[in-house]
């Protein structure tokens, strides 16, 4: 067998193996691992959500202790409450508008480095988190584990907050402060676009 034949045979065997249907005993099996991954990836799937969750982390880092951990602690809990409202069928008007407004608000406070009272900041972040949870926490694909989807969803959200906090740590340098304010402007601008699409 010469080299050329070997080169052809390997890819052919590989393709045949991949396409052979008799090996595919795939099944749902309550979707254990898939449920987690689907939930984990879900918060990353929409730019409006990604920006809001990263913005929470950035704003927390800008405000410093205790906001740096209190805001990312508030968001997932209230987001879960929003998802629960969605699961129970409690109506919530203007979901997409609320999500867009959350981007505008969070971008705005980062841009202006606005320092609100801690309780008020938590209430506002929590209020907007309800919209995010309502919109996305209930989108469990059929056949997957609700619990693992929920775990993935919350952990995915938490990871986005951590990314936001990591970005927000630039606040200790003058150039970093400027860059953060620039990111706030970008998030606000994107929020305006999302709002345009939501009401348009």
């Amino acid at each position, binding site marked *: 067998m010469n*080299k050329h034949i*070997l*080169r052809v045979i*390997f890819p052919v*065997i*590989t393709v045949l*193996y*991949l396409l052979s249907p008799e*090996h*595919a*005993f*795939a*099944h749902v*099996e309550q979707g254990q691992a898939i449920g987690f991954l689907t939930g984990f990836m879900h918060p990353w799937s929409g730019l409006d959500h990604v920006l809001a969750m990263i913005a929470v982390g950035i704003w927390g880092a800008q405000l410093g202790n205790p906001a740096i*951990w209190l805001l*990312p*602690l*508030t968001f*997932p*809990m209230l*987001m*879960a*409450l929003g*998802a*629960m*409202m*969605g*699961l*129970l*069928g409690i109506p919530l008007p203007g979901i997409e508008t609320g999500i867009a407004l959350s981007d505008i608000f969070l971008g705005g406070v980062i841009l202006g480095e606005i320092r609100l009272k801690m309780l008020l900041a938590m209430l506002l972040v929590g209020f907007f988190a309800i919209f995010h949870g309502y919109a996305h*926490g*209930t989108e*469990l694909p059929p056949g997957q584990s*609700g*619990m*693992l989807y*929920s*775990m993935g*969803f*919350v*952990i995915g959200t*938490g990871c986005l907050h951590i990314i936001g906090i990591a970005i927000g740590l630039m606040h200790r340098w003058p150039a970093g402060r400027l860059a953060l304010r620039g990111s706030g402007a970008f998030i606000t601008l994107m929020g305006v676009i999302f709002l345009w699409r939501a009401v348009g």
Partner: protein
Amino acid sequence: MNRNTMRSSIGLAVAIFILSPSLACAHLVTTGMGPVYDAIGHLLLTPEDLVPAIALALYAGMRGAETGRRAMFMLPVAWLIGGLAGSSINFATSLPIPAVSFLILGGIIAADLWLPSSAVAGLAVMLGFVHGFLNGAVLKGNSGVTALLGIAAMLFIMAPIVSALALSLKKPWERIAVRVAGSWIAAVGLLMMGWAIRLRQ
């Protein structure tokens, strides 16, 4: 065909074989090493039981060594007693008990709520008994008691380790990380509660 191409081809073929769905004959945890190890596997692969146990261990550790020791002794014993009760009584519930455990324990951790040592021990007893009872209800049979012993033994090993880890966290940000994890557990509990109620509707 040079060596590199040969290596790549073989590597690719092996990867495809490993990732092939033909081996996916999923089933309940069966280690092949008997009911004790099956039960250990069950505990480690069942977040409904594992996460509340870890959460309690973390909280007990955060409250200090004395509280941690007492709770960590109570938890496996209560789990075993609850399991024995569950395996001998015919009782079924549709209540979302794991969701409640997630919510309560996650909430306590997130809020860094101060509870006296006796209350933490009481919490350990309650958690152990209820979850053990649920385990026992599904482990009825010849190997049920042995399996429950496996779960209790695993808890006896795992919970103090987690508790000791929480106890060793001295820096403020480390304790905050645990509290954030608690908030995530509570959030998952809320979502689980929502799913449970939705399924009933």
